[in-house]
């Protein structure tokens, strides 16, 4: 090929191309080693823990490792016929071992998640298990009638699956049966889908509200002389630097029924003293407080983009006969889109995972999905379900990110 004939050689006989590649490789490696500490840090303290936690949403080895015999025995059971004596024997042996190793609590907790009431069934039976004699199925039933119930065994079979769909399904209000079907959760226990939808609804409203309120402020800051705009900037930043908790509790003082806002409304005669508005401990409270708290995240990116737009563009438009509105809408606004996009996605993503504010001012209908995740992390200690809810939330965020990229374009984003 003519490539070969055209190749140039340096004085030491090595092809120049090769030399260039080598030196490029060297500088690339140098750059790589410079960022290596950061990469390692991210991998160890960010990526691995997240993967580890998220994997809990579909992995649960507890039952399978702690009760190996019954896990093996239940593998071949069809889930419909009554369990055999062999299964019962394996169960009793496992129970004795779990009692001895003090792991029975973990096992009982796991099975109880599939069927309420099995927790005490396991701990009670385990206490008596070492005195049991064949036939074991009869011995179990003699100890507690619940062992006769097919549902108990089905719950155990589901618990014994190390790779389990239970948690992810529970995160979307479904459940997995021993027959391998996926069915809806009982009606009065469905909650997650409602909360996911509400979380998105609140996030969208907050994003729109911060945009409506923040855009004019950013515009004012960008167009005023430096000294005044700096003062305004400080006014925007001051709440930004104040603790989140302080700002949230300040809203409680403002909005509660004997608070400043209601007192003022009663004084002005807008409402009667005994018919004060419920502005807090509900969705309204969550919306107001979150909008205020997230406002700087909208203003700052928009402001930083507006700062770079030369006023001559609008003037030029006007000089060519555009009205104020046309000059703004057709010339100025499109140039601020990168800032609006950045602000909107920042606020939206922060809002979708918001937790302290709804917990404090949300009451009953202002709660978001993060409050349920917190509940499962802290109170019920069902970290698997918390991980599953987190995974679903992450998928939501990635989906919205993709949507954003599709319609606005991620390259159009400017954070300042």
């Amino acid at each position, binding site marked *: 090929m003519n490539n070969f004939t055209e190749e140039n050689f340096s004085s030491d006989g090595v092809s120049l191309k090769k030399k260039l590649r080598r030196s490029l490789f060297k500088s690339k490696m140098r750059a790589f080693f410079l960022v290596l500490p950061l990469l390692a840090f991210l991998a160890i303290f960010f990526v691995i823990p997240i993967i580890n936690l998220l994997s809990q949403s579909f992995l649960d080895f507890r039952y399978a490792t702690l009760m190996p015999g019954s896990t093996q025995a239940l593998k071949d059971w069809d889930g419909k016929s009554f369990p055999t004596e062999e299964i019962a024997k394996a169960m009793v042996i496992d129970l004795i071992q779990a009692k001895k190793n003090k792991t029975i609590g973990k096992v009982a907790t796991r099975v109880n998640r599939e069927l*309420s009431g099995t927790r005490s069934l396991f701990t009670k039976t385990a206490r008596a298990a070492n005195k049991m004699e064949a036939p074991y199925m009869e011995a179990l039933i003699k100890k507690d009638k619940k062992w006769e119930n097919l549902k108990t065994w089905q719950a155990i079979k589901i618990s014994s699956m190390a790779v389990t769909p239970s948690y992810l399904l529970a995160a979307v209000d479904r459940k997995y049966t021993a027959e391998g079907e996926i069915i809806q959760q009982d009606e009065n226990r469905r909650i997650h889908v409602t909360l996911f939808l509400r979380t998105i609804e609140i996030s969208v409203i907050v994003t729109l509200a911060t945009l409506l309120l923040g855009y004019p402020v950013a515009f004012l800051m960008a167009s005023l002389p430096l000294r005044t705009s700096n003062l305004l900037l400080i006014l925007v930043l001051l709440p930004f630097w104040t603790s989140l908790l302080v700002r949230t509790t300040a809203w409680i003082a403002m909005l509660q029924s004997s608070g400043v806002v209601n007192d003022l409304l009663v004084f002005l005669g807008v409402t009667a003293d005994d018919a004060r508005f419920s502005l807090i401990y509900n969705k309204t409270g969550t919306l107001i407080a979150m909008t205020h708290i997230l406002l700087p995240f909208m203003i700052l990116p928009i402001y930083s983009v507006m700062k770079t737009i030369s006023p001559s563009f609008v003037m030029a438009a006007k000089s060519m006969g555009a009205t104020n509105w046309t000059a703004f809408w057709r010339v100025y606004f499109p140039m601020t889109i990168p800032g609006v996009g950045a602000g909107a996605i920042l606020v939206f993503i922060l809002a979708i995972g918001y937790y302290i504010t709804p917990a404090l001012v949300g009451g009953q209908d202002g709660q978001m999905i993060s409050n349920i995740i917190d509940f499962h992390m802290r109170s019920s200690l069902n970290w698997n379900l918390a991980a599953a809810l987190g995974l679903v939330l992450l998928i939501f965020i990635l989906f919205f990110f993709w949507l954003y990229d599709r319609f606005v374009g991620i390259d159009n984003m400017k954070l300042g």
Partner: protein
Amino acid sequence: MKLKNILIGAFVGAGLATSVTAGSITVVSWGGAYTKSQVEAYHKPWMTKTGHQVVSEDYNGGLAEVKAQVDAGNVTWDLVDVEKSDAVKGCDEGLLETIDHGSLPKGADGSVATSDFIDGALTECAVANIVWSTIFAYDKSKMSNGPKTIKDFFDTSKFPGKRGLRKSPKANLEMALAADGVAAGDVYKVLGTAAGVDRAFKKLDTIKDSVVWWEAGAQPPQLLADGEVAMTTAYNGRIFNAFAGEGKPFEIVWDAQVFDMDLWVIPKGAPNKDLAMDFLKFSTATEQLAGQASWISYGPARKSSAPLVASYHNKPSLKMGPHMPTAPENFKTAIANDFEFWADNGDELTERFNSWLAK
């Protein structure tokens, strides 16, 4: 010569310093008036007696922190004040050290610990210090002819106004059934059936629209003081402290109180386990438990402490006896929180409660 002396002096000094530097334990509790009562009655006397230090930390209940510390193998807490359900759950899951009940000190009347503590106060991994109770309270100054029974709490036409309730099914379902006419002794039997649960939620439905939900124990007295609610459920000690300590005109209604215990537990692998055990024994002795009851109206977990309970620490005229959950006058319709029931059904009922709330 001089240098040598200085060196010797330094070494001796250092040696003395280490022998004098006593141990230190981290004791974790619920904060506020409750932690204060423990500091006064347990921590201070123990520090004077042994010369060791107690570092007091606050938390909001639950086993999450203990679980995280034990799982990570980096335990920093030595002793934690937990609710009974958590004491048993944590023990089952292997998060807590087991406690030898035989090593606990005898009561002041000479009875052995196992018979001196009230029923259920000693579990495999925990020793109770107090009996506390969920009651409901109202502001006397705003309601001269106040509610008398749990039925009144659920009657918003007779007693208009908002109601404060804890954002948890616990105690609420029990109280709802009691208000619906179920006897205290049958509450858990009824709640054990699907129809009973429906019945409890149906009763809660009748006041759902006027409920303000609280989570931390310090909230209900605040809600009452702000006039945010007409009446609210609360932990009895918090309401007591609001009127004994701050002179608030609050009145407790004891009908259908749901009582429970708080217990000391030692996380598995606690750094100063022996000292923590010593503190545990000291603090659950007869006098200390009785002493704590002069700071807050929670009942001591030892029978032998009851006769020693006197009056509020800075008000000799305010006798503590009638303010205790266990006072006979208050105890007539009391419901004992059934741990086993909640351990079995807590997850499911909480799910149902949360979904009921979200509707």
